[in-house]
């Protein structure tokens, strides 16, 4: 029974979504009644003695979740995650890093999508810097990467950016497809 308890606990922990009784019985090759008993025991144990985790019945299954009373604390962790970049932001940042100084129109031509929102986000996150205006009709803004960008990636200066050649060289198939060297 202790073995079954550990197995059930681990399954519930790893699954990441609610597991039904049927599913647990199938996975642990055990009797549903035994599993029910184990779950009741675990649930009671997590509930007692001020734990930060609860075993709850949800969406027809069972799942470990944080204690709702701790939500004000846990929200602080959610905020931390903002330090990450979306795929669209990554793509835009990559274009600017390698092609700077570059205008929004040039970025949008390369990406094929409107990039105003992403540019705004990157500027807000202090990853970009406005380098001036391009001497063409309309005088569009020229974007480049900021000091913080270098810090984020641990680069001494922009010359430290890996060249595309070096990456292509890792994969012989890509070498032929490299008409565009980083400028």
């Amino acid at each position, binding site marked *: 029974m202790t073995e079954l308890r550990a197995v059930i606990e681990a399954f519930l*922990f790893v699954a990441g979504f609610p597991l039904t009784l049927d599913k647990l019985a199938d996975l642990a090759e055990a009797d549903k009644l035994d599993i029910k008993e184990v779950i009741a025991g675990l649930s009671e144990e997590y509930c007692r003695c001020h734990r930060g985790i609860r075993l709850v019945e949800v969406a027809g299954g069972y799942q470990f979740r944080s204690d709702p009373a701790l939500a004000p604390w846990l*929200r602080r962790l959610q905020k931390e995650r903002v330090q990450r970049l*979306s*795929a669209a932001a990554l*793509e835009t940042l*990559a274009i600017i890093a390698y092609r700077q100084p570059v205008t929004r129109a040039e970025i949008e031509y390369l990406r*094929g999508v409107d990039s105003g929102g992403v540019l705004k986000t990157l500027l807000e996150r202090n990853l970009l810097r406005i380098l001036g205006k391009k001497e063409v009709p309309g005088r569009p803004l020229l974007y480049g990467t900021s000091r913080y960008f270098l810090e984020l*990636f641990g680069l001494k200066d922009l010359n430290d950016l890996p060249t595309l050649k070096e990456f292509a060289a890792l994969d012989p198939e890509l070498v032929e*497809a490299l008409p*565009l060297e980083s400028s």
Partner: protein
Amino acid sequence: MTVDIKLEKFSGPLDLLLHLIKSQEMDIYDIRIVEITEQYLKIIDQMKQLDLDVAGEFLVMAAQLIHIKSRMLLPVSEELAEEEGDDPRAELVKRLLEYQRYKQAAELFDQLPQLERDIFLPKGDGADLLLEDAPQDTELTISLFQLANAFHQLMTHAATEVFHEVVRENLSVTDYIAMISRRLIEHSRISLRDFFQSGYQRTELVVTFLALLELTRMRMIKIEQVTTFSEVWLSRLATTDQLRRICPAEEALDYD
């Protein structure tokens, strides 16, 4: 085909040499170079007979072995002895010893408990484990490699495909947005891989990718990934009704 299997097994000429030395029960500090060279060349020959593509590194090592063998057999001028040291095998021995250490280290690594093989973490976003609705997070972490790689991918595709063939083949982002929306009406969550594995051409991949980006921008879908290289999941943020509305609403998006 025994040789073929053997070659798969050896990660390079040093690995093959080490194997020969061990199987002949030789002292690594005192390699019987004539014997080893002969066996090494025999295996290379077998590889050629089987029309296997013998990697250049194996041939380079063969040449080095022959060179060492000749140095061992022939009387050596003092000049050469001074230049290359007394024992022509010395450098090879050093390399083999060093290589052997890393090979052992690799074996040790393989025995360590590994994530996803021996040890498991909760799957899915940690946010799902919170009991209350947390702000949705559509972001990924990035490394310098990912940054450079993103640009490389973009340039390779951009150079050869997107701006020419898309038009020619009449692939429109709008169509793909509609297609993705239809699939997300059926399933609330789809892995990114499911979209890309059905024998797509490169142009189709690019257009699919752009469509996904556009849907993310419109906050219709969420793209999430637990650890940096794990499965990427798409799930719908919008209601199925909202998604249904996108399907015919093509004029709203100005792409082709």
